[in-house]
């Protein structure tokens, strides 16, 4: 509850001052095939993975279905949708893994 209020407050401050962060996005497997890219850098004014997911849906409509079934990793660690992002982070889209 308190966290969500803080995130909302941070978001409102960001929108007033137009603060953006640069985030590197890595695409693998189905995600890579859907967008035709291995990686890209974006300027993003959201707060967390959930916001980034919406941003990517808007920027790369071909990836919508893949995103719904994918996990995310921030700097090589699995991350929840609520994970706060910061400038310079690397976010990987991890479609369902299939090793073995």
């Amino acid at each position: 509850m308190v966290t969500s209020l803080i995130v909302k407050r941070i978001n409102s401050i960001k929108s007033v001052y137009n603060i953006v962060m640069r985030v590197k996005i890595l695409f693998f497997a189905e995600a890579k095939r859907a967008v035709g890219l291995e990686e890209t850098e974006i300027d993003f004014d959201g707060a967390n993975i959930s916001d980034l997911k919406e941003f990517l849906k808007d920027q790369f409509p071909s990836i919508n279905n893949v995103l719904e079934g994918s996990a995310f990793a921030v700097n090589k660690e699995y991350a929840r949708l609520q994970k706060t992002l910061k400038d310079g982070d690397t976010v990987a889209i991890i479609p369902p893994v299939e090793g073995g």
Partner: protein
Amino acid sequence: MVRLEKEPLNIDFLIGSLKSDTAGSIVIFLGEPRRGKGDGPVVSIDYSTYEEMALKELIRIEEEALKKDGIIDVIIVHRVSEVPLKEISFFVGVSSAHRKEGFEICNFIVEEVKKNVPIWKEIKYD
């Protein structure tokens, strides 16, 4: 030991690396690409990975496995290249004092790798 390997695996070498004076059991799992019913003329599976993260996850799984009572050594190797049918794509070996913990931990490792390690496959057809 954990490894992501492009070349075919040397299974004898890997098994030999697990031998020790204190191990009464070595449990091995070998994964192979397969042609499922209705898959058509599959000839191979091309495995890709997010290498840095996959190694990190493999080390985490190895460390967790080595904490269990009776486990002496663990080897996890996954191919990350195109693997023809009948070649080994995935090796898990566990040496332990007794077989019970060896089977349990081998199964634990296989499940963890399949669930969490960022490796993907693309089926290749004739």
